[in-house]
């Protein structure tokens, strides 16, 4: 057998480890590899029940508009179209996925009611005997819109007089226990700015990013003999999907069964609960199997991406490189609905001020609503863009002080026993060691004092 391994350097933390294992730490072949290379691994869309119906969505052609009317006449006349679902067919049409962990309010319709808040928002679901008929039907739905002003910029959305995106929140931001953002308050940053030798403030920004799994989001729902529904899905979270779907359908949880677990890439994009509820309603109403799977366009432009973020970082820095204060203002573009972004924004707040011990930290992390495709989870949720900003900031600070960028990091790195800004005592830290090791790999010379630093002690600082 040939395979490539990144080497493991066991010398740091050697005293903390035991290695008396027979299976752990050794290379075991992936149990799914043979199925993958023979094409026998079964993904959800490989299920082909007889009598399968296909569901395609008619979506909003506007960024923000009132719906004056929906005309299904032509769509219903398409040969093969069996049924068209509207919001009136969804038992509990309004939901938010994190209600399972207590997040409120319900803010998103499964199918649009009187308004659309982003381009591509689902309005009605066409169920047909063939994919082609469902597409044709969806294309023939006529919606009469009255355009409303739209807002696409996070700071413009928070400004006075901005169009209101989501009435269920009442403001263009998610409210955290009465506060307009998720906050971190640790020490006194303003005092630090007063004491600092240098104050640096810069701005960072990102655009939305697609998870882009090669398998698109989808499900096949098959009504069972006992009246239950079996849902073949590529969800990343079977019970999360099951529980949310049952709440939307207003059925007992045990009416549903999810079969999944083999997924063609997720990267966070398959944590939303979007396809299953409406496919289940269609299956219940027709008593036939129904498939609802995103096409590539929907996956790219309608499924929730990684949020765009805008981040301002203001640092109080001493001549010797110690960062004594960091103020972070973060805007996360949630799009038109909350989905998982209130959670991601809290995670972002907890991540501040990065892997450094800074005695004074202030962070305001805003979950902002705009007329954009709702954003949601993606690999590195709440952290990836923050790391771009934080680590660009570190480089700029180092250059401004004419300091070695790795030495600046080692000087400020958090270590065991440090109290983080969110007031948890750090343990198991290893930032110092990864920096030292990277320096070694690329031949970046560090002074002896920096090579001797350790995550387990503050000696030498």
């Amino acid at each position, binding site marked *: 057998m040939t395979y490539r391994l990144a080497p493991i350097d066991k010398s740091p933390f050697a005293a903390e480890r035991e290695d008396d294992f027979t299976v752990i730490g050794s290379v075991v072949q992936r149990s799914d590899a043979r199925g993958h290379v023979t094409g026998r691994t079964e993904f959800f869309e490989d299920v082909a029940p007889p009598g399968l119906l296909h569901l*395609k969505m008619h979506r909003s052609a506007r960024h923000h508009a009132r719906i004056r009317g929906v005309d299904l006449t032509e769509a219903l006349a398409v040969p093969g179209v069996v049924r068209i679902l509207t919001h009136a067919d969804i038992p509990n049409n309004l939901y938010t996925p994190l209600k399972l962990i207590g997040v409120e309010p319900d803010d998103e319709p499964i199918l649009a009611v009187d308004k659309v808040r982003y381009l591509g928002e689902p309005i009605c679901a066409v169920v047909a005997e063939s994919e082609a*008929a469902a*597409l*044709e039907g*969806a*294309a023939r739905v006529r919606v009469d819109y009255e355009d409303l002003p739209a807002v696409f910029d996070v700071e413009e959305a928070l400004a006075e007089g901005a169009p209101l995106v989501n009435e269920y929140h009442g403001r263009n931001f998610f409210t955290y226990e009465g506060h307009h953002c998720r906050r971190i308050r640790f020490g006194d940053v303003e005092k630090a700015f007063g004491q600092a030798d240098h104050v640096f403030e810069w701005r960072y920004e990102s655009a939305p990013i697609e998870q882009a799994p090669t398998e698109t989001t989808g499900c096949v729902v098959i009504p069972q003999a006992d009246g239950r529904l079996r849902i073949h899905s590529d969800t990343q979270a079977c019970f999360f999907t099951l529980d949310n779907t049952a709440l939307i359908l207003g059925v007992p949880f045990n009416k549903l069964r999810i079969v999944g677990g083999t997924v063609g890439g997720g990267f966070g994009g398959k944590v939303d609960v979007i396809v299953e509820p409406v496919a289940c309603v269609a299956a219940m109403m027709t008593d036939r199997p129904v498939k609802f799977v995103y096409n590539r366009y929907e996956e790219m432009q309608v499924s929730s991406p990684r949020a765009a973020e805008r981040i301002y970082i203001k640092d109080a820095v001493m001549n010797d490189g110690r960062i004594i204060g960091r103020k972070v203002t973060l805007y996360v573009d949630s799009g038109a609905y909350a989905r998982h972004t209130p959670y991601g924004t809290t995670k972002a707040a907890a991540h501040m001020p990065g892997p450094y011990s800074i005695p004074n930290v202030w962070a305001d992390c805003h979950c902002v609503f705009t007329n954009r495709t709702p954003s949601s989870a993606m690999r590195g949720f709440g952290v990836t863009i923050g790391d771009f900003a934080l680590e660009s900031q570190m480089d700029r600070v180092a250059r401004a002080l004419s300091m070695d960028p790795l030495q600046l990091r080692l000087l400020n790195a958090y270590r065991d026993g440090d109290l983080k800004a969110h007031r948890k005592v750090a343990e198991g830290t290893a930032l110092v060691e990864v920096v030292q090791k990277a320096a070694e790999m690329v031949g970046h010379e560090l002074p002896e004092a920096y090579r001797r630093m350790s995550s387990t002690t503050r000696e030498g600082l």
Partner: protein
Amino acid sequence: MIQAVHLPESAEAVAVHSARGGWIMGGGTVVMPLVNSGAATRSELVSLRRAGLAGIEVRDGVARIGAAAPLSSVEEHPELAFLRPALRTIASPTIRNLATVGGNLFVEQPYGDLAVCLLALDATCEIAGPAGRRDVPVAEVLASGIAEGEFVTAVVTALPEPGTWYYHKAMRRKLNSASIVTVASVTRTADGVVTSTRIALGGVAPRPVRAVSAERLLRDRPLSPEVLTEAGEAARADTAPFDDAYASAWYRARVLPVHLRRAFAGR
């Protein structure tokens, strides 16, 4: 919804279906995505696959390439080796196994790099249709299209003399990526100066265009980096760049002189 797929076995039979509103399909790389997404505007497809239009003949320095020839067959043809580097910048090998020469004339920019080459080569299109056959310069087909019911049966081009062919395509990725700027040219020099030149550009206008301003400027001048940059700046007058997912109009215009120079002078 598609109601019929016709597989006519001659150009004449294609013409019959085309005249009835059938949608001509070469390799399917443009038509089938629309069929699959329900965006096809016609209900009958006319495949060229069996119409005998896929042959490539090279005789006396002239190549006649059937419209239904897949790009891979042009790429592999020993006497069309000068086009090989250009073809390898178009999509991926799997797509080139399907996509056809004729189809490439009609794809939207920033795709259609072979069409840019054919424009630089001053190729001629053989066209068939309800009104019979006609030969039309490729420039005209690219600029104005063809009439309803017509279709291209072949393109005919003289092979460029050795040392006169230039091609360069700027892309976001090294392989399988659309054009930011494509430059193709047949340029002759004597005593270090340009005696004649045809330059075609892709990626910088809704259709492939001739860089006539650059051509004018290059005549009787050397292919030096300075002159080429000047020509590239002049070429902006011949373009109408656009924004798309790959690059902005600003960027395309900004780097056009760089890539025009690189097409002739290398890096």
